């Protein structure tokens, strides 16, 4: 979802800002507020300087709790919880527990002054890491966390149950060590009251719903934290107790089976089946660290993915880059090249059949209708040639290069041109039926559905035009819409250079959802059951759920993904500017195989009869077994 703020939201932001302490304010004549470093449910956390040490810069963390509850009883409970946290912290001494310096209450706000931890919380570390955290790193943190849990659980006279182990409560300091923060929770569980009650979220074990807080509960939450760190799947966004449905090694195959087994044991549904103590879990982790050699271990070789050794069925060399998309008809593959020719090749062996020269590069996908091949060229013309002989049937002139691929509906060919027009040309006569003037060059392929033509243009405008060439509605994205559209009766899907995947209502152009991509995109989405799959210039191939715009998976290639993915059986085929064609399992995004070429792949592959056909800027057209 978009972080951008409308006017109204900015309004409410500023009321939050007003209630926050501003930099430069001194609290209790001692703590000079420098900046907000965190936001909690009940107030902010600030970095402040302790002015009792005027000659050195001593930084402290000031945790604020704003007590705005109107009910006096609720207010009192909140203050008691706060003081409980302060008193608890004062009795604890462990390298992974922050030192407490002070606490005080000013009017409706209470403050805790704590050791300032230079670092980031684990949730931020997980989110900011590209790909997965290394197993060694996670094991090292896990051992430290077991150590501090062991300390808390053996506290005298009563064991302390942390109750709120989760990545955002674990700070990683500048030396890479973990520090537990936020001891304030110890949520009281109200039971026995009739009505709807609330449990807790994400990292909590099943028994917490029954009000039981035991060391085994902390072990479960630690398991949940490690699962999140290893898989990048936030359990708060998943149904509770669903870790078993997301096996670690299926998401992140780099994790060792031994570590996976430890995390699974910590996450056992029945507390009796988990580790008996944090110490026991620590021992198990240490054993794995020793075995896999935290001290410089050999990288495992066995990647199950074959990236070498795939032999193409055939390849065919053109005289220049192949950026277009192929089409197939009766055993012949048709594809355009930057050498200005359209080639007809035998689909079985790649044997040259004929070529048809134009006066410009061909980047579009040919359309085959009634024995004719129809395609646009950068020579500004739409060419119609015989599929069998390659002889010209007719041509149609526009006033700009044609990069949009033709679409046929109701006896008319629809295509766009850099001359800003959407052209509707009668297939039999080769004459214009009408043309529709848009705001800019049209490079996308028109999408036709229920008597309407949908297309985006380089200005960022997106049009819905009926079969008489009248505009029904218009939508505006922030940057060019070069991507073509795919759609269902329920929604139209396309991407924009403004780095967004859009879902619009086809009837009126209202936005159903937007999905933020890492960078711009000109890739056309592909529908795969309830997933929308599309590439972007950040190198990722994304799979997004159609009903709620949730990311199902993403796959990283080594360079921009400008071409479009296609679905064939249960695989997605997609090229990347890194030169490889990728074959991914469409439900999980897992790599099945990849095939490297010597140039960028910017077109869309064609898969037909278990063979993948595609071109590369290395001048070759390839055919591989799907």
């Amino acid at each position, binding site marked *: *979802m*978009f972080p951008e703020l*409308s006017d*109204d*939201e900015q309004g*409410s932001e500023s009321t939050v800002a007003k209630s926050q302490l501003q930099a430069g304010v001194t609290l209790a004549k001692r703590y000079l507020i420098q900046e907000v470093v965190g936001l*909690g*449910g*009940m107030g902010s956390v600030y970095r402040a300087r302790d002015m009792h040490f005027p000659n050195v810069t001593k930084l402290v963390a000031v945790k604020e709790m704003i007590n*705005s*509850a*109107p*009910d006096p*009883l*609720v207010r009192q*409970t*909140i203050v008691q919880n706060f003081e409980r946290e302060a008193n608890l912290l004062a009795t604890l001494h462990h390298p992974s527990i922050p030192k407490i310096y002070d606490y005080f209450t000013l009017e409706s706000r209470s403050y805790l002054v704590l050791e300032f931890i230079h670092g980031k919380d684990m949730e931020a570390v997980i989110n900011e890491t590209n790909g997965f955290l290394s197993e060694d790193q996670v094991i090292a943190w896990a051992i430290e966390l077991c150590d501090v849990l062991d300390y808390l659980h053996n506290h005298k006279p009563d064991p302390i149950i942390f109750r709120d182990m989760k990545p*955002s409560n674990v700070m990683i300091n500048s030396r890479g060590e973990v520090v537990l923060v936020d001891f304030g929770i110890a949520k009281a569980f*109200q*039971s026995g*009251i*009739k*009505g*709807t*009650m*609330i*449990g*807790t*979220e*994400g990292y909590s074990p*099943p028994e917490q*719903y*029954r009000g039981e807080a035991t060391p085994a509960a902390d072990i479960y939450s630690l398991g949940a934290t490690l699962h999140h760190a290893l898989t990048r799947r936030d359990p*708060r*966004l998943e*149904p*509770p*107790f*669903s870790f078993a449905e997301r096996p670690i090694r299926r998401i992140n195959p780099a994790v060792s089976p031994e570590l996976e087994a430890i995390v699974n044991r910590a996450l056992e*549904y029945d507390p009796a089946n988990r580790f008996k103590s944090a110490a026991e879990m620590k021992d198990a982790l240490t054993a794995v660290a020793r075995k896999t050699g935290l001290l410089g271990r050999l990288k495992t070789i066995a990647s199950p993915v074959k990236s070498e050794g795939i032999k193409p069925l055939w390849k065919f060399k053109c005289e220049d880059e192949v950026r277009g998309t192929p089409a197939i008809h009766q055993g012949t593959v048709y594809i355009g090249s930057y050498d200005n020719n359209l080639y007809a090749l035998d689909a079985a062996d790649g044997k040259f059949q004929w070529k048809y020269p134009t006066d410009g590069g061909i980047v579009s996908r040919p359309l085959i209708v009634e024995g004719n091949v129809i395609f646009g060229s950068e020579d500004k013309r739409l060419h119609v040639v015989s599929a069998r002989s390659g002889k010209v049937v007719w041509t149609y002139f526009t006033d700009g290069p044609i990069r949009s691929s033709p679409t046929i509906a109701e006896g008319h060919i629809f295509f766009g041109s850099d001359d800003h027009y959407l052209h509707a040309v009668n297939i039999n006569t080769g004459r214009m039926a009408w043309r529709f003037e848009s705001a800019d060059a049209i490079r996308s392929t028109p999408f036709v559905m229920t008597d309407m033509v949908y297309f985006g243009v380089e200005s960022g405008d997106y049009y819905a035009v009926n079969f008489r060439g009248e505009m*029904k*509605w*218009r*939508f*505006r994205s922030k940057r060019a819409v070069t991507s073509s559209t795919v759609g269902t*009766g*329920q929604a139209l899907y396309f991407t924009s250079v403004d780095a967004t995947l859009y*879902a619009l*209502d086809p*009837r*009126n*152009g*209202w*936005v*159903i*959802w*937007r999905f933020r991509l890492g960078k711009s995109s000109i890739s056309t989405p592909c529908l795969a059951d309830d997933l929308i799959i599309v590439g972007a210039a950040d190198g990722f191939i994304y799979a997004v759920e159609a*009903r*709620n*715009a949730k990311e199902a998976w993403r796959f990283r290639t080594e360079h921009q993904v400008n071409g479009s993915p296609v679905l064939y059986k249960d695989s997605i085929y997609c090229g990347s500017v890194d030169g490889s064609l990728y074959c991914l399992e469409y439900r999980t995004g897992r790599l099945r195989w990849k095939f490297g070429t010597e140039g960028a792949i910017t077109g869309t592959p064609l898969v037909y009869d278990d063979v993948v056909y595609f071109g590369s800027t290395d001048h070759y057209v390839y055919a591989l077994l799907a």
Partner: protein
Amino acid sequence: MEKLFRWLFGKHPPSAEKATDVASTAPLTEEQLKAIVSNQNPQYDLPQLVAAAGQSVGKQRELNEDSLLAITATMAGNSGNLPFGLYVVADGMGGHQFGEVASNAAIRTVAGYILKKFSPYLFQIKTNPMEESFQEIMAAAVNEAQRIIQREAPGSGTTLTAALVIGQQVTIAHVGDSRAYFIYPDGRIEAVTRDHSLVQRLQELGHITAEEAENYPHRNVLYKALGQGDVLEPEIFTLAFPQLGTLLICSDGLWGVIGEQEIIRAINESPNLQRACQTLVTAANAAGGPDNISVVLAQLIG
């Protein structure tokens, strides 16, 4: 239109003797229904949204902690008049202080936020399409409600099931165990939300059976509620409004008390939506009325 529905389908899930009468008649397919309705109703070429609501405190509670809102309008626009509807049910947490404050704040904040966003399109002359998506507006409205509840009544919580209808798209935001259903004239019922309740989850995991679930001691424990937790991830999704069907949103005071068959019958046999709401509320009270009851029904006709 409702009369036509009654005439067409009202006799479908009838008493036993009637069932034998129509035994030789196969139920109509959706296509057939569509064909009949469109043939006999050419005057409904523009879709019309109609809705009704009903509430009761129930027979065993003193307080009503449910809140409800139903707004139906038509957006005049260049590409035709668009049906606009906003239907929300919120059920405040009984075990917490301010259950009714939370459900009330949830409704007001969510509805206030959404109506403010759509205000230019409903009440002012404006032609630019909205930039934000339905789902983003819903998410922002729910987050705003989360913030307000945490500020106004910390510790309290509420369920929230909200449906925003624009044209033929219905965007639903859902937290907790109030429910949205699609009910079709041929007697099918489809739950479109999934309860965020412990008992539901344990059942999904196979740890308890449906029978055990009926008597589970922590039946009412939710794992997600508005006002609770630091990260609230409401379920937000968009579906096509059920063709010829009815959208039902209700609190557990309805669905936890009367069965699906009774719900279907009440809707498909009532002459209009108001009467259907009345029938549903009465049925829940007749079955003991253990909890507050809230019901909203909406249909898109034409």
